[in-house]
Every structure is written in structure tokens, then in C-alpha cells.
């Protein structure tokens, strides 16, 4: 077990898969000479060379589109979108091409493709650069959407994504890159579409993922001081969505709070809540609560931005409301 950062974990996953498989290559803005704007691919250009670490023009549609084409020829491209906010500029190719080609042509076309994109707010980047629109991508069948919250999951899930024969949108969070935690030394992978209990408890269930896992764990620590033990389920994948661990936990606690960073309306929490009610109706002891972003474009001003984002206190408060 080594203690490494999320950034190192993702970097290692890419490095190891590129070492293991010549067909794996990276393309995106500033992934090469610059070393990745978040330094995730630092050193890759010198080691793997310009053929396998490809700096692209600023043209998201052709970054994803050409990755799709390369995947169709049997390669395993990892396309990096500098941030998920720029995924709108590649929307057609993510949700209408990558997500549909395999199905639409009767299974003839296979797309072993990964699209990495970093998202999240909290860095005063303003409305266009601070989004967590994960849910809109998770809405599309044919696409797999993964969003890890720990270094261990990030490394294992990215390796699994690269080896998968389906298009995977791999969502990272800019304020998690520094997070440090233990990661197995073995050449492990983590299956896509499996939620995970990240903390044991019996009083209430918190369902969350990505950055909000960190917030939820902090909330859990505060709640302990008041004798409240929450169980935390990390979705890790948004599509396929694995409700099993969520339902199991809920049947034990009978209370749930869903914590997501994105906007509340039509968000991740709505689906998870609806599913719990559908599949564990008789176990519901209190209305399920959702903690999410206020419904405004994120402002630049730090105080306002923090007001809009879910805080530890919001989670603590919501948990107490369901008890």
C-alpha cells in the first residue's frame, strides 16, 4: 500500500496502461509539451513520444470525434477534455456518436474509448468554467459515466475504463487532485458500475460520489461527536448505476441523504431518491433529503460561490433532518 494523490493515481493508471498496451494513446489540449494543465500527464510526452501523447488544436468536437474514429480502427484512445465545461463543444460526439454507434449499426462498430474530463466548482472560475453537469451525460444509454472519489478508485476505474470496449466518460474533480490516500501496489482494477460503502454506520445513509464524498466524510466526522453514525455509499459510476449497496444500506438505516455538487433540479439525487422509493418503499422512515448546488450559474465572488456550493454544514443539517 502506497499513499499517493488522486493526481498520481490517475497518472499511474494512464502510464501503466500505455506501457502494457501499444494501442493506448492520449490526445487532448496541452497533454504533451505542457504535461497536462493539471499536470496529470507530466513526463508522458518525453517518455512515450509525440505519437502517443498528442497535443491537439482547441477543437473539442474533433478531439472526441477523432478518438471515436481511432477506436473504430482498434486503438484505445484516451481523449482528454481540459475541463468538462468544454464537453458541451463535443456534445454531439459524446452523446450522439460515441453513445450510439455500437447500437445503431447492430453491434458492428466497437468503441474502446475513454474521455477524461475534469469538473467541479469552488475555484472562482465563474459560471462557464465551474460546472458539474455529470447528470446530463449519465442520461444517455450507450455511454458509461464514471466519477471516482478516492485515489484507489480513480486508478482502478481508469484502468478498467481503458480496457473496456465501451465509450467511457471519466469525470475527475479539480479540487480532489491533491487528496492523498492508500492505493494497492498490485496491478488491480475496479469494476465499472459498482457502488461502494466508504464508511460504515447505522443511523442514516449518505449517497454521494466524487468531491462530495470528501464533504460527506467530513460531515460524518462531525456527526460522530453527536453520536450519529452515518453510512456512506459512493456511487463511483453514474451509468450503469448500481443501487444494490444503496438499497442494502437503506434497508438498514431507513433514512437517506443524497449529496451531489451539481444543481438540484433534474440532478443525480432525484434519480437515486426515486429509485430508493421505488425499490425500498416499505423501509422509508423519513423523507429522503437532497443536498445540492443552489440553482444559479456559479458566480466569481468567493463568498457567493461558496454559498451556492454544498457545504459540510448542509450535509450535517440534512442528516439531522432525516433522523
Amino acid at each position, binding site marked *: 500500500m502506497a499513499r499517493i494523490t488522486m493526481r498520481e493515481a490517475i497518472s499511474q493508471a494512464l502510464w501503466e496502461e500505455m506501457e502494457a498496451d501499444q494501442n493506448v494513446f492520449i490526445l487532448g489540449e496541452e497533454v504533451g509539451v505542457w504535461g497536462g494543465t493539471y499536470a496529470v500527464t507530466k513526463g508522458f510526452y518525453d517518455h512515450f513520444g509525440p505519437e502517443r501523447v498528442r497535443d491537439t488544436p482547441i477543437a473539442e468536437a474533433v478531439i*472526441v*470525434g477523432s478518438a471515436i*474514429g*481511432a477506436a473504430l480502427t482498434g486503438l484505445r484512445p484516451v481523449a482528454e477534455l481540459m475541463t468538462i465545461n468544454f464537453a458541451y463543444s463535443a456534445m454531439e460526439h459524446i452523446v450522439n456518436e460515441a453513445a450510439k454507434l*455500437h447500437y445503431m*449499426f*447492430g453491434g*458492428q462498430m466497437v468503441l474502446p474509448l475513454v474521455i477524461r474530463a475534469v469538473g467541479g466548482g469552488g475555484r472562482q472560475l465563474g459560471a462557464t468554467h465551474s460546472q458539474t453537469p455529470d447528470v446530463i451525460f449519465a442520461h444517455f444509454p450507450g455511454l458509461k459515466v464514471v466519477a471516482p472519489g478516492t485515489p484507489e478508485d480513480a486508478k482502478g476505474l481508469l484502468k478498467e475504463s481503458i480496457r473496456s470496449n465501451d465509450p467511457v466518460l471519466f469525470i475527475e474533480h479539480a479540487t480532489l487532485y491533491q487528496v492523498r490516500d492508500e492505493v494497492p501496489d498490485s496491478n488491480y482494477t475496479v469494476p465499472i458500475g459498482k457502488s461502494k460503502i466508504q464508511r460504515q454506520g447505522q443511523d442514516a445513509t449518505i449517497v454521494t460520489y466524487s468531491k462530495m464524498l470528501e464533504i460527506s466524510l467530513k460531515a460524518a466526522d462531525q456527526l460522530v461527536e453527536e453520536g450519529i453514525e452515518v453510512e456512506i455509499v459512493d456511487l463511483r459510476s453514474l451509468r450503469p448505476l448500481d443501487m444494490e449497496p444503496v438499497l442494502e444500506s437503506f434497508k438498514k438505516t431507513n433514512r437517506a441523504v443524497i449529496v451531489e455538487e451539481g444543481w438540484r433540479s433534474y440532478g443525480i439525487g432525484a434519480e437515486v431518491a426515486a429509485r430508493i422509493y421505488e425499490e425500498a418503499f416499505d423501509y422509508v422512515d423519513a423523507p429522503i433529503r437532497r443536498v445540492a448546488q443552489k440553482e444559479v450559474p456559479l458566480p466569481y465572488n468567493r463568498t457567493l460561490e461558496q454559498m451556492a456550493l454544498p457545504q459540510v454544514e448542509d450535509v450535517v443539517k440534512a442528516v439531522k433532518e432525516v433522523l
Partner: protein
Amino acid sequence: MDKREHFDLYYQMVLIRLVEEEAARLYQQGKIGGFLHLYIGQEAVSTGLISVRKPQDRVITAYRDHGVAINCGISSKEVMAELLGKATGASRGKGGSMHIADVEKNFWGGHAIVGAHLPIAAGMALGDQYQKNDNVTICMFGDGATNIGYFHEALNLSKVWNLPVLWVCENNQYGMGTSVDRASAVLDIHQKAEGYQIPNSRVDGMNVLTVREAGLQALEHVRSGKGPYFLEIVTYRFRGHSMGDPERYRQSEEVKKWQENDPIGIYRKYLVEQKIGTAEELDRLEEKVKAEVEEAIEFAESSPEPAPEDLFKHVYYEA
């Protein structure tokens, strides 16, 4: 070119024509659903072009794809069956007219979002370049597709990375009801390639041999490692954009004028005049095609529907 080759080209053009005339009929009868975009009038373009591609060269086009599919070697049976949405169709009945493909034949579809397949084509060319073979990707699209951003991003990247892709614009002079001059800053579409310093040319698309010759040179250029090439092929769509087009945007005189330029008629005249074949031989060939198309319809109509469980197949890859 020997007689056999000439006859094969003629055969393909007639086959496309008859398959589509029958498809139009079946559409009226409600046996074909969705959108149906006929290639009638443009047969010389893909027939001439695809006739000079090597089997390992990839072909990708837009939704007006029946002709290209047939030229790439997909049987009239599989095309018909796909139009009828049958399990025996090229795309197993899931794609329909706009989404015909057969990757075994290196035909990569059939794409219905205007211009969106150009970035994908650039990527296939990248895949071949990465794998250091000398395959060429042939990407066909319409004049209207040259105004969307995908076109720009794909052409720019193909030049920057020197990708082995042949860009082929089928300029049939309208994007639905909008003539080139009302949608494009330049009338000679190939002028756009100048913005990327991609070598380019413009040829007549009603003469299959002219197209074939141009295709040969263009493919040679790309295969030799010189990077992308842009070919504008001027043609005309005899029918509406798709079935049920009011055609308010053009005069019937204009259509008639062009129909006198029927690519099949031009070629037939040439073959007879050059004594490559007699009228009788060509008539016999056409009879054979008629029979083949009837068989194809027969096959398609008697083919099974996809099984209900197919609805959930192919959403994700299954080993």
C-alpha cells in the same frame, strides 16, 4: 480498363438506380419508414470513386448512403433488408436507410448528423497512420456539410497531423432547399481547402470515368504520404432531398436540364460509341439487374423481423 471492368461499373450504377426506384415505391407503400434520401442522379460519384479504392481503404459517408453501400460491396439484399428493418439487414434492422454499414467491407456508414462523421473519418485516418499501414480513409459529404464547425475542425486537424484522408465533397448544389450561394461563403467548395492549404480540385460528377480518374490521382496523393486531399465533385440530385420534398426551391426546368445529363445515360452512350459493349449486351445486363433487385425485395420481405430481445442488445459491448 477492360470490358469486364466497364460493365461492372455500369452494372453498379444501374443497380443503385433500380434499388432506389424500388425503395421509393416501397416507401410509398409504407413498407419503408423514417427518412429515405435517394442518390438518383449522383450514381457516377461513388461508383467512380469507390471503384478505385483498395479493399483496405475505409469509406464513410452521410445518410445518402445506398449507392455508396452498394459500391462498397454490400449486397442489394442486405441493403433492401435494412430499408425494411429486417434482422438480415446490413445493420440488423436497427439503422435503417440513413445508417447502413458493413465494417467487413470497410464501409463505416451511413451517418445522419450533417458533418459529424468528418471528425470520425479524421480519427480513422489517424488510426491507420498510427498503425503505420498505407490505408486511406475516404470521407464523403455534401456541400451543405461544409458550413458546419465539424468540417473545419476535421480538415484543420487532418492537415496539422498530415492524415491519410481523402475529403470528398459531393456538391449537388443544394443542402435540402438551400442552394450553395445562400449557405456558403464560396461557390467553388474546393476553395475552402485553401484555408487549410490542402491540395484540392473540382471535377464533373456526371461522368463516372472522370470521377474514377480524379479519384485515382487523389488516392495516390494521399497514399504516398502527402497528407489529406480535397476533391469537389459536382453533381445533381434528380429527386427531392428525401421523400415528400415540396421542391419549392428549384425550377423543374433546372431539374430537367440536369436529367438530360443522366450519368447512366452518358456512360451507356460512351460504352456503345466506343464499341466497348453493344446496346443489346447492356440491355441484357439491365435485365439481370432487374432480376437481382426483385430477388433482393423478395429476400427482404421474406426475412424475419429482429427478435424482441434484440432491443436490448448492443447497448454495450458483449464479448
